[in-house]
């Protein structure tokens, strides 16, 4: 599905998007192996805070969720769970080829193949794994997308909620998280 791009924001939304673009808090959730390139991106060498980005502890506080690589079904349940806890506007950046078509895990029984069937992805970063430069570049792109009002994945998710839910249930059977230790 292509995310619509027309710009019909009013002035207040434009101002709001200016603030959203320049202050992006990412959720502190390492979903996959791409997370190993996040510490260099965050710390002194590449310094993500230059762009106004910083890690935040909980989903409620965060604006952007980084899906750092492959997602096993077990993680996808948590990802959906915590994505729905985030407050609008919220964005998703997907790392690496695993989120696009499964990558090297195309025939794995545990990982999903195409992420945007389950949650709306605003931006993909190619590569396995994306270098910190690529990650920074993607963040710069995300900022300009938000400024132009093109990062509308969260709206898309609200409007097509049934479609996403159906896909989620098809692959996961249930999104509810039980007591995982089975006691």
């Amino acid at each position, binding site marked *: 599905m292509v995310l619509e791009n027309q710009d019909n924001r009013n002035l207040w939304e434009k101002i*709001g998007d200016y*603030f*959203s673009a*320049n*202050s992006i*808090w990412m959720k*502190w959730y390492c979903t996959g192996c791409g997370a190993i390139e996040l510490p260099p991106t965050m*710390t*002194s*060498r590449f*310094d993500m*805070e*230059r762009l*106004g980005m910083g890690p*935040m*502890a*909980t*989903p*409620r*506080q965060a*604006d952007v969720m980084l899906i750092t690589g492959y997602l096993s079904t077990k993680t996808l349940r948590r990802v959906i769970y915590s994505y729905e806890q*985030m*407050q*609008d*506007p919220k964005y998703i950046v997907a790392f690496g080829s695993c989120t696009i078509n499964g990558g090297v895990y195309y025939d794995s029984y545990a990982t999903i193949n195409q992420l945007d069937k389950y949650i709306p992805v605003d931006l993909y970063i190619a590569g396995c794994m994306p270098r910190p430069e690529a990650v920074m570049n993607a963040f710069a792109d995300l900022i300009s997308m938000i400024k132009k009002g093109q990062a509308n994945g969260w709206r898309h998710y609200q409007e097509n909620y049934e479609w996403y839910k159906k896909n989620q249930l098809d692959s996961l059977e249930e999104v509810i998280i039980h007591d995982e230790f089975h006691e």
Partner: protein
Amino acid sequence: MTVMNFVYGFIILLAAFIFQTTITGFNRKVTARIQKRYGPRWYQQFLDIFKALRKSSITHGWIFDFGVIMALGGIMATVIFIPVAGFEAFPNMDNVYIISYLLAIGMLGMAMSAAGSGNPWASIGVSRALTNMLAYDIPLMIVIFTLIFAFDTASVSEIAAMQQGMGILGWNAIRMPLGGIVAFIALFGMLGKKPFDSFIAPAEIASGPMVEYGGKHLGFMFILHELMTFIEVSLILNLFFGGGSSILVYAIKYAILYTLVNIISQVMPRYKIDQAVKFFYRVPLVFAIIQGLVVIFLGWGVSVWF
């Protein structure tokens, strides 16, 4: 009490917010330089706050919402009573007792709201925050009572004015050095700076009381935090570091004091909450008691030493 008092109060409120937020932004830059990186823009803190206010929010029941409003109201009321370099919105009402009671409303509102969210991390965070308050408050209050005893007044602006005109030697932190040390250490605890930030420790309790706040609630919490920082730094500045003879001097002294605290806290790990309590009840409490005894029985430091 005229309309002008309220206008002045509003001006103090607005100026305090803008000033403290700028200082916070500047200190984020200082922090970045200590960590060998470039750091955010100086106005990043404003962007963060307005961004948070722009987002949608979720409520976890009326206690959750009401607590935030109560905390913000209590803190805003407190800011109005803070004397800044002799400038007071409501003259003769800047009593230490009023400030500390109003401050407690803010604290309690925050605690109520965080507990109302029903998240266990938030409850742990709140209980840690209150424990932490209990830890730094006892030594600090002993020192403040000593000041009140020594100067026969509980008015913050009068205590600040008594330190003027003698340069650095007039500061209470110099006249009563042990008390000054206690106040400076307590400032770390009041501001929630490391090593006394275990109640918002992200790696332990996922940012504690803040855990369920998102969107507008979080924005209000940030504003609240800026104003609270202003109150706490101003209180210590007025009581122990001589206040300011003019707004400019006051602002410079304020910035230096806050930046100093921030720089020190950047090379500190955090205490566990029980260790923090033990720490405050050991050295600062003993210092505070000694200072009190010295002032009461020997009278040193009440008048200027030299």
